């Protein structure tokens, strides 16, 4: 085996043998900018990605995430800034000289080569001896569970199988960094979900650093250790899925990731850890003060639908009096039963629409509400997020 490694020619270093310890940044993107004509695709973006991390770039289409990924692969070069891989600036290094491989959105499998030929393609270019190429191809075929299909051509495979070949081909050279451009976008929902889990398991087993680009937040939340949310060429927030969902830093992130109710208002009173906010269309709301209180008093309060509870009469008045609970009254206008959850829309007496979702924890509908029914929507101040407008 030691001989094999010595023979591996120009193949990028194997991940588990020669890399710096975990947590050291493998990749540092430093104030990178990319313009296409007058359009700023990536705007002074900085980011660090650690070795072994599963990182997702999440954003709407046209936010610059694919451009950033293509700069990491070497297909675009940054106009300004540096991209450091293991401390070395790779901005000027051509794609074929980078220890980085990419899995393309449309897979880009070579139609004239078999499954094995596709997987072996990069190994042949690296000048590996034939026997080792055969071993590595067999290993990759087993890794993505394509045994028996080695001789097929790409057009004889299903979409899911093509996706696996593309993955195996990209992993065959043992890149330090694997880039995945919307890797699951072409698969149907069921297959996408099972493939997400397989990708995660594979990434843990190999320890390779994955950077995935996706517009699907569920996909990003499921798979990634950390998510970078991009908008107009900038990173709005880099955080774990939980932080992103529970503590968004801006109104844009809060609205982009998941569903949320937002009430605009002004700060009326500060009392210890509590803010009392006079909202435009939902009355007064008490919210936990953010750790770094902003200067501005024109703010908005955000609350996720699943943290809004509905009841016929509402919690005891005392709790409302002392500001331990927010209590809003209104009429149910819309009910959508989704199986695991039921979503309600409540029109408050003050005018705002509040969405609430409740888990259907019992088969019998003892706890459901009908359209037209008067209800009390209530939630804790601690579940509110205060954001600048």
């Amino acid at each position, binding site marked *: 085996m030691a001989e094999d490694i010595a023979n591996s020619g*120009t193949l990028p270093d194997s991940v588990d043998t020669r890399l710096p310890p975990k947590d050291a940044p493998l990749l540092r993107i430093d104030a990178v900018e990319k313009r296409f004509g007058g359009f700023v695709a990536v705007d002074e973006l900085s980011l660090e990605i650690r070795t072994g991390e599963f990182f997702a770039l999440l954003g709407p289409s046209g936010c610059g995430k694919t451009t950033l990924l293509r700069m990491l*692969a*070497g*297909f675009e070069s940054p106009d300004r800034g540096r991209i450091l891989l293991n401390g070395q600036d790779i901005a000027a290094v*051509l*794609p*074929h000289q980078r220890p*980085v*491989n*990419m899995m*393309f*959105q*449309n897979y*880009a*499998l*070579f*139609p*004239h080569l078999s499954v094995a030929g596709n997987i072996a*393609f*990069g190994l042949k*270019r*690296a000048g590996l001896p034939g026997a080792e190429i055969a071993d590595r191809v067999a290993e990759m075929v087993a890794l993505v569970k394509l045994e028996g299909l080695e001789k097929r051509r790409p*057009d004889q495979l299903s979409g899911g199988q093509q996706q696996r070949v593309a993955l195996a*081909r*990209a992993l065959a*050279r043992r890149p330090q960094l694997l880039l995945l451009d919307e890797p699951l976008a072409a698969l149907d929902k069921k297959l996408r979900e099972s493939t997400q889990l397989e990708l995660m398991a594979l990434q843990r087993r190999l320890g390779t650093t994955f950077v995935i680009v996706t517009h699907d937040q569920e996909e990003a939340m499921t798979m990634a250790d950390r998510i970078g949310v991009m908008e107009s060429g900038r990173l709005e927030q880099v955080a774990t899925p939980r932080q992103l969902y529970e503590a968004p830093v801006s109104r844009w992130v809060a609205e982009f990731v998941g569903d949320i109710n937002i009430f605009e208002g002004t700060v009326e009173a500060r009392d210890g850890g509590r803010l009392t906010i006079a909202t435009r269309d939902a009355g007064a709301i008490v919210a936990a003060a953010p750790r770094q209180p902003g200067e501005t008093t024109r703010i908005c309060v955000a609350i996720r639908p699943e943290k809004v509870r509905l009841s016929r009469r509402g919690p005891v008045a005392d709790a409302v009096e002392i500001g331990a609970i927010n209590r809003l009254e209104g009429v149910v206008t819309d009910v959508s039963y989704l199986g695991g959850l039921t979503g309600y829309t409540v029109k408050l007496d003050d005018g705002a629409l509040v969405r609430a979702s409740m888990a259907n924890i019992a088969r019998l509908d003892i706890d459901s509400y009908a359209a037209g029914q008067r209800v009390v929507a209530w939630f804790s101040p601690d579940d509110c997020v205060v954001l600048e407008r």
Partner: protein
Amino acid sequence: MAARASRLTRFNIAALALGFAFLYLPIVILVIYSFNASKLVTVWGGWSLRWYGDFFNDQAMLAAAWMSLRVALVSATAATLLGTLAAVALSRGGHFRGRTLFSGMLYAPLVMPEVITGLSLLLLFVALDAERGFWTVTIAHTTLTMCFVAVVVQSRLGSLDRSLEEAAMDLGCDPVRAFFAATVPLIWPAVAAGWMLACALSLDDLVIASFTTGPGSATLPIRIYSEVRLGVKPEINAICTLIIGVVTLVIVAASLASKLSSARGESAAPL
């Protein structure tokens, strides 16, 4: 396109027969009369291969045929190189300034009257004081056929996914090797089809060749045309039958090559 039996009505059969008769009857008659034993073109004198034998003993005709063949092979090869390069530049060069003009100019010779192409080439060769003969005809045929090659190859390139080359680069090929590893295997049927098309066009051409050729280097069509002006000899029928056979073979091979590329899941080159 296997038509179902029920769709082959009598009317359809009649229409098809009429159309094909219109197209191929003259050729069929020519082929049959090439096997005529009689010296008189219009009188049937039984089957014979004597005119084929005459052709293979006619040194002037054989020289002309050899000339045509060399011109076809050299000009088709040159046209394939130039046409492929032009197609690659036009479809891969991005949207450079004047790209539409360039691709329009590439296709213009397709519809240019051959007399004009021939005359302008003649003027050019006279101005350059080039000795007219094999090379001038070859260059003229390269000019004529390269746009056909470019059209065939460009349509193939247009249907190819650009990310294939990127994938090849990602997997360790420099840009030039990526082109040869990922693109050439997919466009070669179109390139081959273009080459064969160029060959066939060059073999057929009379007008441009007669403008650009010089004394003592007549191509086969020129030779045949000048013989026919003195009266149709049965030998000509035999030669024409041979030419039809060769061109048919080449065209069938070209369309098979094109089919081969379409069988690989990509759209075929138009032929």
